[in-house]
């Protein structure tokens, strides 16, 4: 019988090794798998390359993972956000690497990685500093730059509902990078608000088909990052 549900967040992240590449879902706090990130802090894997749109807020979630010196390199589109202090400080001290990628290119690189497409041409970033050093090509008279697909060892994703197969649905704009990151990692680990019986999610509305998911942990009442930041919480507490 297929059952991808595991007992704890700590167990879910236990295979993440030093030097691993880890995709972390979320756009700001929406869709950020905060309990899985905190479990990764407890677990302690270091020298991680993290692929995520932002770099976290305050001293919880992704910001806490960075503050705990577990991240060697960030691949992201928007590393500064209100309340994002940890990353700027380390970046200005030269203690963390940054690969800045336009948001749509980041999404497409992840999609390509998951779809077995090694690289693609795009118009985004042509004639800007972010195209520097990249292969370019004229196609039908227009210039495009070559961008490579991204794969990762692990993805950490937050969703709304999951069954034991890992069929997922998401909530509102928390969907963001979840579905594409699920496809682009060797091991996708999902925290879900609710585990439901197989068949309870209408196949017509499944957003991520179970084949892309390896492990599921139920977190009924996930913490709200903005609340934690407002209350000046710091992880580990």
């Amino acid at each position, binding site marked *: 019988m297929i059952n991808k549900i595991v007992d704890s967040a700590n167990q879910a992240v236990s295979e993440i090794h030093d030097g691993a590449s880890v995709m972390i879902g979320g*756009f*700001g*706090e*929406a*869709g950020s798998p905060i309990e899985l990130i905190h479990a990764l802090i407890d677990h302690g894997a270091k020298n991680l390359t993290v692929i995520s749109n932002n770099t976290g807020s305050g001293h919880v979630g992704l910001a806490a993972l960075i503050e705990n010196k577990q991240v060697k390199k960030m691949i992201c*589109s*928007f*590393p*500064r*956000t*209100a309340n994002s202090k940890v*990353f*700027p400080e380390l*970046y*200005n001290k030269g203690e963390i690497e*940054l690969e*800045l*990628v*336009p*948001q*749509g*290119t*980041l*999404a*497409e690189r*992840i*999609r390509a990685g998951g779809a077995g497409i090694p690289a693609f041409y*795009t*118009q*985004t*970033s*042509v*004639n*800007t*500093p*972010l195209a520097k050093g990249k292969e370019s090509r004229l196609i039908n008279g227009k210039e495009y730059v070559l961008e490579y697909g991204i794969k990762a060892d692990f993805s950490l994703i937050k969703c709304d509902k999951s069954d034991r197969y890992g069929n997922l649905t*998401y*909530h*509102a*704009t*928390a*969907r*963001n*990078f*979840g*579905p*594409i990151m699920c496809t682009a990692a060797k091991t996708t680990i999902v925290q879900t608000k609710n585990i439901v019986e197989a068949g309870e999610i209408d196949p017509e509305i499944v*957003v991520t088909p179970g084949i892309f998911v390896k492990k599921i942990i139920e977190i009924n009442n996930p913490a*709200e*990052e*903005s609340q934690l930041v407002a209350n000046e919480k710091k992880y580990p507490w």
Partner: protein
Amino acid sequence: MVNTDIKIGWSRAEMAQKVALDIPDGSYVNLGIGIPEMVADFVPEGREVIYQTENGLLGMGKVPEEDEKDPELINAGKKCVTSILGASYFHHADSFTMIRGGHIDICVLGAMQVSKNGDLANWSTGAKNAIPAVGGAMDLVAGVKRIFVITQHVTKHGDPKIVEECSFPLTGKEVVERIYTNLAILDIKKEGLFVKELAPNVSFKYLQDRTATKLKQ
């Protein structure tokens, strides 16, 4: 008592209103962070405009009341929003398929600098200690059909933002079609940078003095 203060130019709300008047009925529109967000408040009666926010919502609605805020229903500026009846949610690859694939009609963006030929700089000053952050701006200017810029005409320090050539790193080259500032509406054409409309009590000379490239009437 007689009020002798002469108001020069448009307020932010009036600028947003000017943009809103130029958005045709039935348009799919992406609004950038800041003043562009205000455009949604001024859609004229009888027009229906659908707003896309690149974090995954087509059909963005009004700002929610305090008790209906959902931290997982936000816009690109990470502020809480609502969805209209008939809205849809989607993941980032679909969202940027809309943007990069040329499906969005108009994008309204802020700017640090715009050049006479429509080059836009709005993501980095290039300063050494600045954290570069690009978000979706480069995708938007590359893929959306029409790019409008809404910005103050000069910086806080009084430096012109409409320039001969951008000194800041570019977001895109020859991408901007129209600029709405507090002093004027400018059209970027092959033949030059044309003044389409002057704001109240702004003369052509006043405008030209605050613009670092030659304007045409």
